[in-house]
């Protein structure tokens, strides 16, 4: 008989506490972002697909077309080609493409790069209508970037 009433009072008290929690939440500021219009700043540590780094001192990338990334890639999604040119030391990069449909974002290419020419990009809005939209020409991207 005693527990009959004590259960009632402890239960009612916990219900009132619950109401207090939600009424506080009701008048607190919202924490979500209205995504397409309001964007959260992406952390620099975000690991998107790879990108060639543009260096401020040279104004271009530092890729020496060694092909380490291409050989190291477990998914076989990087193609690097370079050619010898008159009066230029080393090879000049002509093709650097990434097939992002196959990339598993393992980062082996970034690790192996001897000149630290590769880095992760901050792109996260990845949606497309065709597979071809994910064949990235990284050389073109680095030239177009400011």
């Amino acid at each position, binding site marked *: 008989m005693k527990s*009959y009433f004590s259960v009632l009072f402890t239960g009612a008290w916990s219900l009132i506490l*619950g*109401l207090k*929690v939600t009424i506080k*939440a009701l008048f*607190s500021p*919202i*924490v*979500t972002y209205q995504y397409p219009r309001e964007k959260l700043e992406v952390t620099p540590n975000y690991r998107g697909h790879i990108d060639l780094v543009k260096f401020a001192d040279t104004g271009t990338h530092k890729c020496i077309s060694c092909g380490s990334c291409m050989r190291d890639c477990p998914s076989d999604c990087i193609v690097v080609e370079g050619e010898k040119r008159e009066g230029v030391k080393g090879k000049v990069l002509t093709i650097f493409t990434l097939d992002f449909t196959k990339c598993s974002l393992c980062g082996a290419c970034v690790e192996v790069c001897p000149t630290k020419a590769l880095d992760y990009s901050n792109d996260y809005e990845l949606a497309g209508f065709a597979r071809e939209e994910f064949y990235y020409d990284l050389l073109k991207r680095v030239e177009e970037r400011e």
Partner: protein
Amino acid sequence: MEIFYSILPDLIRMVVCAICGAVIVFGNALVMGYAERKLAGHIMFRPGPMEVGPHGIYQLVVDGLKLMGKQLVIPKNADKPLFMLAPLLAFAPVFVPLLVIPFSDKIQGFDHDIGLLVILALASINLLAVLIGGWSSNNKYSLFGAFRAVSQNVAYEIPMLLSLLSIIFMTNTFSLKGVVAAQSPVWFIVIQPLAFLIYLVAIVAETNRAPFDLPEAESELTAGFHTEYSGMSFSLFVLGEYANMFIVSSVATVFFLGGSSGIPLPYFEYSGIIWFLLKVYLLMFFLIWIRWTYPRTRFDQLMNFCWKYLIPFSLVNLLITVVMVKLL
């Protein structure tokens, strides 16, 4: 012709009442649907609907249009006539109780001596609609939802009626206007706080809302009795649910919160409706608030709470009321 002229005022009154009833039912569903989603959002630290119109205020209009455009799917093995009948039965009876609710001293469809009985009788038709809908869907989830709805509503109707009965003993009338008039010095919530609490718990169960929304418990029964309903037949159930919420909140306002009484405004016989609607929507806000606060109860807990707590307490409350009325 003479007869026609003699009944003309009544005819006009009927037409006006019907139109006002429809406006209340649909307008209330729009307001409540929006308020529910908005409050649910803000309770979870998110803004709720924001896209259609400023702060998403046209969201429910767009949703309504979408539901009207959708196909009505009838399952192959469903009992077709009953399946089509159930949403209509859930929706149609909600207009009649609105006629006897006194929105203010002068704004009322008609005042009848058995006003409360009309409301209670027609409010239970909704339960029949749930049972028919669950049965005719030929789907085990729907059937379980309907079973639960029936046992829950039958159980919770008893404390609801007993708590209202203790008010009836004090006022000696079933007329809602009479009940409002009887509360001129103090509202009955002050004299009968326990009856008010019991009524409040019972209406949450009667309207099948969380934490007592077992008939449509989505985690166990997908959507309960309206699993198979789509498009407009689904939205008729929702309209009926919100209209029922409005009716039970109105009854609570009339019986416990003094109806349209409040600080007198100009033309109070008519403007008392502002106080009335304010009280009704405050109660509905409370219903939304508890819906988004408490988790769903287990079915045995629900039944235990009714039979072991609400019914004994309301019986004791009734007994004390009767003795006090006799003595004073």
